[in-house]
């Protein structure tokens, strides 16, 4: 399935030569590709879990950089044109932010020469490096945890905060939670509610031309590329969501907007960087919310039992743990990691 995604969504944006090289790779390698790295005047590389390899001009992989096909300046220009569907003028905002989203929700990070305007990034010029991250949608990672996030008496979702260090699966988890909240849970009395996602960095829904490419549930509305604080208010005013999902809150205005949402009776599910409850309490703006028990459930993710382990689940009002020991979110996640390795 991941190979299909690669062939249909990622390979068409590569210049013809590189396209050929990557299509010819053995399928077990294609299946394992996490990132494709293109840097001007440097060899083309693919990142597979735990290591990276160069691609030779003969379409094989090698661990010697000198064997690799060298990505030229023309290749870089062509790649950008293909990625923007021949419309570089239409991706100015994306260039300013330094990334764009491909059909299928794959993220492409960009580097090049930054043009400043009054001290702020205006745009990127002479794009020289691309990092194409292949999206893996892990349907079902939220299966085990979702029952803990729904109030059995009112049948409503709890205000939830998910905290973890970077790369432990926060975004993957809220994406799957969005699906559960929106579609309802099979075999339970929870039939689903209206969900609104403010997807500032297009990571949750992976929108392409405004249409979500990841499955996030059929009662879900997405504001793509919108600043969180503004987006939350826009959704509340216009889309009457019952649950609002935002990723990686941190700035003061985010916290204010979330307080507003909570006061407006909308349930909030969000994520934050942080490895322990103590760390969260130390952050000056966040502790205002956590300290007064605004979040009813706090999930701490880690990687003690593999990527995406629920280290603890805390009742945010009483600050008491609700589970006795850590458990992995779902086997599927481990399986995927094994498969990738």
């Amino acid at each position, binding site marked *: 399935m991941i190979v299909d995604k690669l062939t249909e969504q990622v390979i068409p944006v590569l210049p013809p030569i590189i396209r050929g090289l990557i299509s010819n790779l053995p399928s077990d390698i294609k299946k394992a590709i996490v990132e494709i790295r293109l840097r001007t005047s440097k060899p083309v590389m693919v990142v597979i879990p735990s290591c990276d390899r160069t691609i030779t001009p003969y379409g094989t992989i090698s661990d010697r950089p000198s064997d690799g096909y060298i990505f030229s300046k023309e290749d870089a220009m*062509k790649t950008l*044109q293909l990625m*923007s*569907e*021949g*419309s570089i*003028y*239409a991706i100015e905002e994306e260039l300013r932010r330094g990334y764009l989203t491909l059909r299928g929700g794959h993220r492409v990070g960009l580097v090049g020469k930054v043009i400043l305007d009054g001290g702020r990034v205006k745009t990127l010029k002479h794009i020289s490096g691309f990092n194409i991250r292949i999206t893996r949608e892990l349907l079902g990672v939220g299966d085990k945890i979702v029952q803990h996030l729904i109030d059995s008496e009112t049948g409503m979702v709890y205000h939830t905060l998910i905290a973890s260090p970077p790369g432990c699966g926060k975004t993957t988890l809220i994406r799957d939670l969005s699906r559960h909240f929106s579609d309802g849970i099979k075999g339970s009395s929870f039939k689903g509610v209206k969900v609104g996602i403010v997807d500032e960095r297009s990571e949750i829904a992976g929108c392409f*031309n405004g249409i979500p490419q990841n499955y996030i549930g059929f009662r879900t509305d997405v504001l793509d590329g919108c600043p969180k604080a503004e987006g939350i208010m826009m959704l509340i005013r216009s889309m009457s969501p019952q649950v609002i999902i935002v990723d990686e809150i941190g700035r003061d205005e985010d916290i204010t907007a979330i307080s507003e949402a909570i006061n407006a009776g909308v349930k909030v599910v969000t994520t934050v960087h942080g490895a322990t409850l103590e760390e969260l309490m130390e952050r000056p703006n966040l502790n205002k919310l956590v300290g007064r028990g605004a979040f009813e459930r706090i999930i701490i993710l880690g990687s003690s039992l593999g990527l995406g382990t629920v280290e603890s689940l805390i009742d945010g009002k009483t600050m008491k743990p609700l589970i006795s020991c850590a458990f992995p979110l779902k086997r599927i996640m481990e399986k995927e990691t094994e498969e990738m390795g």
Partner: protein
Amino acid sequence: MKLLGSLILLFSCGGMGFLIARNYRARPRELRALKSAFQILETEIAYSLTSLPQALEKVARSGDLKIYSIFENTRELLISGEGYTPAEAWEEGLRKYFSYLALTDTDREILSFFGKCLGASDRNDQIKHIRLVVEELSRQGINAEQEEQKNSKLWTYMGVLTGLVLILLMY
């Protein structure tokens, strides 16, 4: 027999003159259509930031002259997923359809120049580029109209008259 031959001669010479004259009449019309096509494209790029394939589709649908086939062909190649950049796709469209047009080599140079930067820079740059091309086309348009006035009647008469002269010589 001789009468039939003269008639055929008259018609073919007249027809040839007429065809050349028609070319002179078609060029200003095609240049005008191209100008308005580029203006539509400019609006799409400048104000709605439409992606190039969509913008080209809109242009291609705005009329049924042969020039719109170039836009349509460019769009098709862009969405074909075969890795064409806009510049390559446009050049390919020109190669395929230019010979059907009444335009001159200078016109073709302007169109090729347009393709070189198509879609490949930021908005302001695209707008400037399109305006430059429109300006060039306007200049060509004035020139083409003058030539039309000068030459279209001339060629029509010349065809018929050449026919008559040849017939006279024959007798």
